[in-house]
Structure formats: C-alpha cells, structure tokens
C-alpha cells in the first residue's frame, strides 16, 4: 500500500462513516417522537452528510481519477465501503438510535479533536468543523441517555438492551489497519489505541449516571476495514444508490 493509497482509503473511511450514519439518521425524518426531536435527529443527519461530502470530495481528489464526491457515494459497491458496521445497523427504536449516537459521538469527539492537529491540512480542517458538531451530538445523546436510563422501567430496559446489543460493534472503532499505521508515522492519522481508554471512560461515566450497566467486552464484530459488512449495508446502498444506478448521471 502506497502512502497515497493509504490516504485515499483513510479519507474514504472517514467519509463513509459520516455518510452511512447520516443516512441512517435521516430515516427519522417525519418519524421523530415529537417535532423537536425529529428536527434534532435530522440536524445531526445533515451534519454527518456535510462531513461526508467534505471527506469524500477530498478522497476523490486524492484518487485523482476525476471523480466527484457523488461518484464515490453513489457508484461504489458494498465491498468498497469502509464505514464501521455500527453505523449501518438499523436505527431500531429511539433507544437504539440514542445508544448508537452516544457510542459513536463519544468516539468522534476525541477522534476529530486529534485529527484537527493532523499534518494533512485538509483533514485537519474538516475535523476541526467535525469536532464542534460531534460535541453537540454527544451532549444530545448523553442527555437522552440520562432521561431514558432514569425514566420509566420500560425506557430503562430499552436503553439497557440497546447498549447490550450494540456493544459487540464497538471494538471495530479502534482497529488499526495498514493505512492507519502508514499514516500515523506521517502524523496524518491518529493512534486509535490511544483513544480507546478515553472513549471507555466517557461512555462509562454517562452509562453509570444513567444507571445502565456497562457490558463486558466479549467477542467483537470485525470486517469493515476490509470492506466486509453486515447484511444491512447492501439494503442501505440499494436505496441510496438506486437513482444513480437506474439513471446514471441524472441531474435535475
């Protein structure tokens, strides 16, 4: 893997995480529990899609084949997507969505914070924007964890179940692949192993406050660094890419 290939794959990964998480959250549009929360979730979706656009545009530049961010989003097959599997899991009920957002935001805040000091100026610039957004996403999902965790017996059990079910997808966040190692030396990427204890502490603090039990680290799902996904990504792409597949280069 050349440094350029590593940078391409790394940037794609950042873009794909934002794109798929944003797409999942957009499914809440018009279905939120109340109008205010509907807007809150779709605002977070839009933050993600904006971030995806910036990262994928940069990825297209790095690849140097004259593609656009839309080509990368709408014309890549499933096995060339590198988003974490947790992002593609169904939104489930509100507790699942909030639990997912908490686990992801608690990772993104220190990730983007570290990446804002990347020696790659474009990545640093996008990350500096991302960290402000992620902080808000974190606060939003954290406060909902408190409310659900300490709410009713039902809301507590739903959040507990969601955290339990999602936990096995959190190991992947910290996997160092070949591109990470190559770019870490150049000061472009972040050492994900260093983020793990920070993430664990943040998540544990919130869950303890929310009276939710922290699951044991068991077997973790893995594969996204190699483009291996759960059954759910294919369905997302079928919907997301339909128009460009059926009517290539359609404009309106």
């Amino acid at each position, binding site marked *: 893997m050349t440094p350029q290939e590593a940078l391409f794959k790394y940037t794609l990964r950042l873009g794909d995480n934002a794109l798929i998480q944003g797409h999942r959250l957009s499914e809440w549009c018009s279905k939120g529990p*109340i109008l*205010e929360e509907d807007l809150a979730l779709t*605002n977070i979706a839009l933050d993600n899609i904006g971030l995806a656009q910036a990262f994928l545009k940069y990825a297209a530049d790095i690849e140097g084949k004259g593609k656009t961010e839309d080509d990368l989003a709408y014309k890549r097959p499933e096995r060339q997507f590198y988003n974490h599997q947790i992002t593609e899991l169904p939104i489930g009920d509100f507790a699942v969505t909030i639990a997912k957002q908490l686990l992801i935001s608690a990772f993104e805040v220190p990730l983007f914070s570290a990446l804002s000091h990347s020696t790659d100026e474009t990545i640093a610039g996008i990350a500096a924007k991302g960290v402000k957004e992620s902080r808000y996403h974190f606060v*939003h999902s954290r*406060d909902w964890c408190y409310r659900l965790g300490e709410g009713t017996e039902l809301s507590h059990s739903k959040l507990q179940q969601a955290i339990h079910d999602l936990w096995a997808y959190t190991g992947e966040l910290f996997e160092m692949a070949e591109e990470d190692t190559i770019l870490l030396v150049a000061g472009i990427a972040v050492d994900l192993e260093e983020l793990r204890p920070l993430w664990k502490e943040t998540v544990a603090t919130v869950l303890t406050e929310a009276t939710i039990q922290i699951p044991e680290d068991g077997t973790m799902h893995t594969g996204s660094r190699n483009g291996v996904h759960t059954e759910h990504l294919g369905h997302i792409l079928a919907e997301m890419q339909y128009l460009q597949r059926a009517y290539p280069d359609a404009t309106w």
Partner: protein
Amino acid sequence: MSIDTQLDLWEVFIQQKAGGNHTHAGSVHASDKQMALQNARDIYTRRKEGTSIWVIPSQYITASTTEDADMLFDPSDDKLYRHPTFYVMPEGAKQI
C-alpha cells in the same frame, strides 16, 4: 383545541448578535431545561440566527389580557412628547 401531550411548553428568546436584545422567537416542547435549550437551538438557530438563547417555561409568563388593553395602552395615545423625536442624534451614534 386538542390537549397538548408533547411535554411542557417553553418560550424561546434568541439574541441575534452579541450585546443585543434577546427577542421572542417562538416556543418548543421539552421535559427539562437542557432539552428546551437543545430543542431551541435545533429549531431556531439552524440558519445562524443566534449567538445566545434563553428558554423559560411558558407557565411563568404572565400576560396582560385583551380586556385590559384599553386601560393599559390607550392612555399613551395622546402623549406624543414621549417619543424621542425631539432629540438630535449625536454625530456617530448608532442608537440612543
């Protein structure tokens, strides 16, 4: 009117630029003050409208009634001298 089942009602005041007034923007539903602030942020500052937000439970607003409008507001109708139109704007001042 149907009964509002969507949490408590809060009034939202937005300051458009630092040092300016907080003006009423609308209302949001929320179960606590953090949620009210976040909902206000998500609904009323999406297009860079604000630099600061106040939220207050609607139940704490005391409003005058329309029946009292005559008593409260009509007496000022004939007191034009209370308008600052007789002052000369100092040079360079944006507002007095």
